[in-house]
C-alpha cells in the first residue's frame, strides 16, 4: 500500500481551519501545525495514483492550501502493479 509523508504549506491565518478540514479526509493522518505554516500529514492509498488524487484534492478543495509537497513515498504493495 503506497504511503506518502507530505508537508502542506498553508496561508498563515488559515492553518487551524485547514488542519480541521484535513481531519475529515479519509486516509489522511495529520501530525500538527509546524513553523512557517506547514502541516505534516501522511497519505495512504491503494495505488500511487490515489496518492496523487488525494494530494490534488487537498490542494484544490481546501481553501488556504498553497501547496502539497511529498517528502517520502513508499511504493511497495502498489495494487496497480498486481
Amino acid at each position, binding site marked *: 500500500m503506497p504511503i506518502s509523508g507530505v508537508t502542506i504549506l498553508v496561508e498563515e491565518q488559515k492553518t487551524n481551519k485547514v488542519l480541521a478540514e484535513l481531519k475529515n479526509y479519509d486516509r489522511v493522518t495529520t501530525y500538527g501545525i509546524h513553523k512557517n505554516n506547514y502541516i505534516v500529514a501522511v497519505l495512504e492509498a491503494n495505488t*500511487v495514483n490515489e496518492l*496523487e488524487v488525494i494530494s490534488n484534492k487537498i490542494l484544490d478543495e481546501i481553501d488556504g492550501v498553497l501547496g502539497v509537497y511529498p517528502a*517520502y513515498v*513508499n511504493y511497495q504493495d502498489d495494487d496497480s502493479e498486481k
Partner: protein
Amino acid sequence: MQNRREFIKTSAAIAAAASIGVQFPSKLMASTDTNWHKSVCRYCGVGCGVMIGESGGKITAIKGDNQNTINNGHLCVKAFYLPKAVHSKTRLLHPMIRKNGKLVETDWEEALDLVAKKFNEIRKAHGGDALAFYGSGQAETEETYMANKLFKGCIGTNNLEGNPRLCMASAVGGYLSSIGADEPVGTYEDFEKTDLFMLVGSNTAEAHPILFERIMRRKNSNPSTKIVIIDPRKTPTDQIADLHLFPKPGYDLALFNAIAYVLVNEGFIDESFIKAHTFIKDNEGQAHDLTSYKEFLNDYTPEKAAAISGVPAADIVKAAKIFGNSKTAMTLWTMGLNQRKRGVWANNLVINLHLITGKIGVPGSDAFSLTGQPNACGGVREGGGLCHILPGHRLVANEAHRKQVAEVWGVPAGNIQPKPGKHTIAMFQGLNDGDIKGIYIMCTNPAHSLPNAAKYWKGLKEQFVVVAESFLPTMTTEYADVVLPAAFWTEKEGVYGCTERRSQYMPGVIEPSGEAKWDAFILRDLAKKMGFEKEFAKYETAEIIWDEYRGLTKGKDMDLMGATYNRLKKVRGLIWPVPTEEHPGTYKRFTDGDPIYDALPAEKKKNRRMYFYGPKAKDGKATIWMRPHADPGEPTDAEYPIALTTGRILEHWHTLTMTGTAPQLNRAAPKAYVEINPVDANKMGIKNKDQVKMETRRGSLNIEARVIDRPAPGTVFVPFHWKETPINVLCSDIFDPGSKEPEYKVAAARITKI
C-alpha cells in the same frame, strides 16, 4: 509494537517533519531493509535532491533529500511516479533492428555492427557531414561528452545538436550578448533575499513547483515581497501574484522597453553602475551614451507600448514602479521568453532592467533564467553539446579551442571542423533534403517535440535513423532503423548540472533493465566498431570520462576542477566556478567571493563592484541593448485570428516517455485539450468539452475545448504532451536568427466547432 504499515506511516511522517526542520521522537524510528542512496531528481531543471530507497534490486521508496538546499527534503507531485518509470512495462529491454518494416529483437553485436557499417558507408561515400547526432538536456554530461568526441573529434562533423536548442538557446544568446557569459550571475539563494519576483513567460507553480514553494515561503515570511507576472495566460502561479500583465503573445518586447522607459524617467536607474559596468549599444553594435538610450526609449512610452502589447499603460507603469521601488529584484523566465523569433532580444531587454537599475550582482537581485531539463546547463551548454561549441564554453570557430580539445581527445586538431554544423531545425531539414543520410538520436523524441513536426517526418522516414532510448515505443522509434536500449536513471552513474550552475552526482543503484546499457558505453562501443578503438579504449568508467571533461574546464569561467567524483559523492552538488577541491563553490559570479573575480588585478576592479570577465565581454563590462520591438513571426490575421501558445501541465513532462509510463497519471490527465477564454468561446459558440477543429497554416487537429478564464482573450493554450494530439505539428518552426530557437510560443490559429 508497530506493525509494518504503522512503521512506514511513522517513517513517512518523520521524513516530512524533517523536511521542515522538525524532529519527531527518534524512538519511533526502526530498522529497515531499505538501502538509501543520495541522488538527483530525473525531471526538470531545478535539480532537487532525492534519496532513492532500494530493496531487493528494485526502487521501493523515494525521499526528498533534506540536506539538499535546493529542495530541503521536499519534492513535487511527479516524485510519486519516479520509480514507475524505472520499472515500467514500456522499458526497452533489447536491441532491435527493423526487418521487413518491423522492429525485431536482436543482440548488441548485430545491432552495433549494423550501425557502424552504415555510418562508415555514409561517411565514406558522402563525408562526415552526412552524419548527425541529436542529443538531450536529459542525458548525463558524460554521455554528451562521448557523443561530442565521436562526432566532432573522430567522424569530423559538427552536426551535433541537443534539444536544449529548442528551449534554452535564446537564454544562452541573451546572457552571452548582455553579460558576456552564459548562465546566471546568482543562484537560488537569492530567492530568500529578494523583495520582488518578476515571472516572465513562466508557469512556475506547475513547471517548477519546488521553486514556486520557495517563492511562496519568501512571501509568507516577508509579506512585503511583491510578485509580478508577465504572461498571456493566467496559471496556478497567479494565486500569489500582486500584479499580472497579459501581453499579446509575441508582443512583449515593447513592454520591456516601456518598463525601462519608466525606470529611466522616474529616477529609478543607477547611473554610477551604468557608467562603471556597462556599454550601451544599438542593434548594429554601435556604442551610445545614456542620453541616446533615453531618446531611444521615447519610442516606448507606456501608452505606445500599450498599443503594441495590449497591456494597459497604467499596469506597465505600476509594474515598473514596483521594480524600481524594490530594493532587490529577481526576474525569472522560461520558454515564454525563449521560444520566440526574437528570443535573444527579449532576453536582452529583461537583463537591461537589471543593468540600468544595478539590480544584479548583489544578494537578492538577478536576471535568472529557469531551465526546463535536468542537464541542459551541465551537459549541453557547459559540455559543448551544440553544433557551434566544444566542452568548457569553447567555440568550434576558435582555432586555439579546437587545438585544446583535440589534444585532450587524442585526435588530430584538423578533425574538428572550424565551421559550426547544422543547428536543430537545419539538421532535420538536412534529413528531409538528403544532405544528412544517417542520424543517431539519444534520449529525446524529436518526431513528437520538433515544431511543425510533421514536416520533418519525411527525413526520419527516408534516412538511416538510430535511436538510443529507455522506452518503447515513442513517436521517434516508429521511424528508427535501429533501436538501442539505454540504461535509465538509477541504473547508471553520472553528473547533472542544474539551473543554478550546480553539478550533482547520481549513483547507479540497481542493474540496468534487460540488456540495457549506459549511453556513454553504447557510444564508446559504437566508436570502437567504427574504427576508433584507440581513441575510446580508455573509457572504462564514468569517472574516467568525467575527469577528462573536468580537466577541460580548468581555468575556464565554468571551472569544475574541484568537483571530483569523490567530492561530489559526499556533497549536495557544487556551484561553479569551483577551481580546487578546497573551494566551496561560488554564490555570485563577477564579484567579491568569485575566485576568478578575486584573482583579477586590483586596477581592473577599481571603482566597480562587478567585473564581467566572460568570453564575450569587453573591458569587464556588460551591455545594455537598444533592441527595437519586433512582432512575432506569424501574427494573427483575419484568416487565423487567434494566437496559439503551448506548454506543460503539472502531471506530465515533455512527450510522456516517463510520465506516460504510469497509467495512473494518464488517467489523471488523459488527453490534450485547448483552453479557450469564455469571451472567445462565447463568440465562437463553443461550450466546455465541445470537440473543436484547430487549424494553423501547417495543419489541423480535432481537440476538446476547455472553456476557462486562463488564457487572455485572443489567445488559446494547448499542452504539448500527447502523441494522439501532437500540437507541435501545428506550431511554427520560424526561428530566432541568433539563437536558432524556434518560435513555439506564437502561431496564428483558427478554431471551429465540429
